[in-house]
């Protein structure tokens, strides 16, 4: 609140202060520590997938059909190979498919949130800064969109994209369509927070003063507002990441997301569901547990961040 300072030094100091305070609170919250540990472990596993797995499950050459339906932790009766999470119908190591699947899930999640953030922050800034008709139009669109659940908006965008692209390209661009669909369904929150902060900041005297001496107030706005909105945007981004991961999994589960050639956790669960009745529970169970752990720990982190930074998000 009290930051009126101009130079980077001041910002650095505030940042350091926030950081240390955050670190202090973090060390006292076992939930946050566990959530962060799980998140880091999962993201690390996904990033390092090629180094911590013995096969690339989507390279047909590395698969052995004889390994199909291997049970978890038991040597396969034909080949003697052991898979900790078992293998699926085509002999793919479920452990490896999860790590590779998580790469897709996380990529889509991060990219969608980034997209939503850039879009939302820019529109919020514009809306608050220019005001007038621009503000009315942007905020009305936001209101209308908020009326509809994000998943519906994403589905619709997916449907439109599918309609305007030739069938041969659909699988290739599916991931990008997912990112755009989820991102577009999630920008409103960012825009609202940034717009609010912009309006507050705009009315402050130093902005008026800067205008008087002929400085581009837009530059000042960017230098002062963006730092001000940093913590709420961070909180929204974290919670959005959890939502985006769930949204991606849901869309893929519904069969309108990541294609089987590039399966995400949701696709894996969709595939695994088919084996539920025949007793091969592991094909479904491990991807599902992973998705749950990922979504829950990111959610808990977001929850904790919100309490710790305590921006007025309510």
């Amino acid at each position, binding site marked *: 609140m009290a930051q009126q300072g101009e130079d980077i030094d001041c910002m650095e100091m505030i940042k350091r202060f926030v950081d240390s305070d955050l670190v202090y609170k973090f060390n006292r919250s076992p939930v946050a520590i566990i959530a962060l540990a799980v998140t880091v472990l999962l993201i690390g596993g996904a990033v390092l997938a090629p180094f911590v797995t013995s096969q690339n499950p989507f390279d047909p050459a590395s698969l052995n059909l004889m390994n199909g339906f291997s049970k978890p932790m038991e040597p396969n009766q034909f080949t003697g190979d052991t898979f900790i999470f078992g293998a699926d119908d085509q002999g793919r190591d479920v452990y490896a498919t999860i790590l590779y699947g998580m790469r897709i899930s996380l990529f889509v999640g991060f990219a969608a949130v980034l997209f939503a953030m850039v879009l939302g922050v820019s529109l919020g800034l514009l809306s608050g800064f220019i005001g007038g008709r621009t503000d009315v139009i942007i905020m009305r669109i936001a209101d*209308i969109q908020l*009326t*509809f*659940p994000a*998943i*519906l908006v994403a*589905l*619709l965008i*997916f*449907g*439109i994209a*599918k*309609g*305007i692209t030739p069938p041969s390209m659909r699988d290739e661009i599916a991931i990008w369509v997912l990112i755009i669909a989820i991102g577009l369904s999630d920008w409103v929150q960012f825009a609202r927070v940034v717009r609010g902060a912009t309006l507050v900041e705009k009315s402050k005297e130093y902005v008026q003063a800067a205008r008087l001496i002929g400085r581009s107030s837009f530059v000042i706005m960017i230098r002062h507002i963006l730092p001000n909105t940093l913590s709420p945007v961070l909180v929204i981004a974290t919670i959005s990441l*959890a939502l985006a991961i*769930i949204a991606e*999994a*849901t869309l893929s*589960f*519904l*069969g*309108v997301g990541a294609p089987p050639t590039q399966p995400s956790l949701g696709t894996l*669960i969709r595939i695994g*569901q088919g084996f*539920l*009745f025949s007793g091969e*529970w592991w094909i*479904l169970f491990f991807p*599902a547990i992973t*998705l*749950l752990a990922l*979504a*829950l720990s990111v*959610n*808990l982190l977001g*929850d904790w961040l919100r309490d710790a930074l305590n921006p007025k998000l309510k």
Partner: protein
Amino acid sequence: MLAFIIRRVAQSVVVLLVVGLVAFSLFRFVGDPVENLLGQERTVADIERVRSQLGLDQPFPVQYFKFLKGIVVDGNFGVSYRQGRPVADIIAERAPATLELAFVSALFALVLGISLGVYTAIRRDGWLSNAIMTLSLVGVSLPTFLIGILLIYVFAVELGWLPSFGRGETVKIGGWTTGFLTTSGLKALILPAITLGLYQMTLIMRLVRSEMLEVLRSDYVKFADARGLPSRRIHFRHALKNTLVPVITITGLQLGSIIAFAIITETVFQWPGVGLLFINAIQFVDIPVMATYLMLISVLFVTINLIVDLLYFSIDPRLKADGSAGGGH
């Protein structure tokens, strides 16, 4: 108050016109409607004939107006590309399944959500409250489809108590098929309804709890306490009513989104409703079905929004006096 209602109705109409425009643009620009209607064997004359039949040679605003008129006056939503039947008929066939499911889910979410929210607010530090709150956080992070799969695994695969898909036996009353009247229909309803309602239930519960805690800290509750009113009266008469004012808005919107979330539940349970229809339409790019679904759900949402606002008015006397304060943020 009247001015407020008129303004809200006008806003709703604008929203619907915008949605209509989106839906119409879907028809007009996504895929070629002529190609979709005629298929492979077509002549230039055919194309011209269909174009003028569909009015595609007229200016865009005229086309849009005709499109809206067709819907509002004749209930003409076009013909499904995939099934070759009027979309209106298909939807009418499917609607009862979704509406019954949504109704039971909403009831479940509302009753359980409000009671658990009140309970966890009043017994704030009880172990049961803490357990419920922790579970609810897991519930929020749990994707709907996973809940569905979990329920299927436990109650259909392992225990074999309840069916894992479909509506069971239904009875036809007029144009409405209901699953409420047969045992198998009711049994088939349980798992999907819980799956669909659980997320909303968690949200409502957390919302009721936080609002209720806020209200319990308020001066008028303290004053009611100082007047020696029985605690049951304070909790369930004074505090609950004040809690419900803000809860109603969000709850209303949540209940609306139950219909939308039904898409997921219907896919998991192969429930023959509108949501499953919509997903299939997306997979096959069946534009008329997509557009119709979009428009119907918009009407539903806008109506719910409107009702919520009016309900708000009837509960909070402060808004009756000065309409200007209503709806403002």
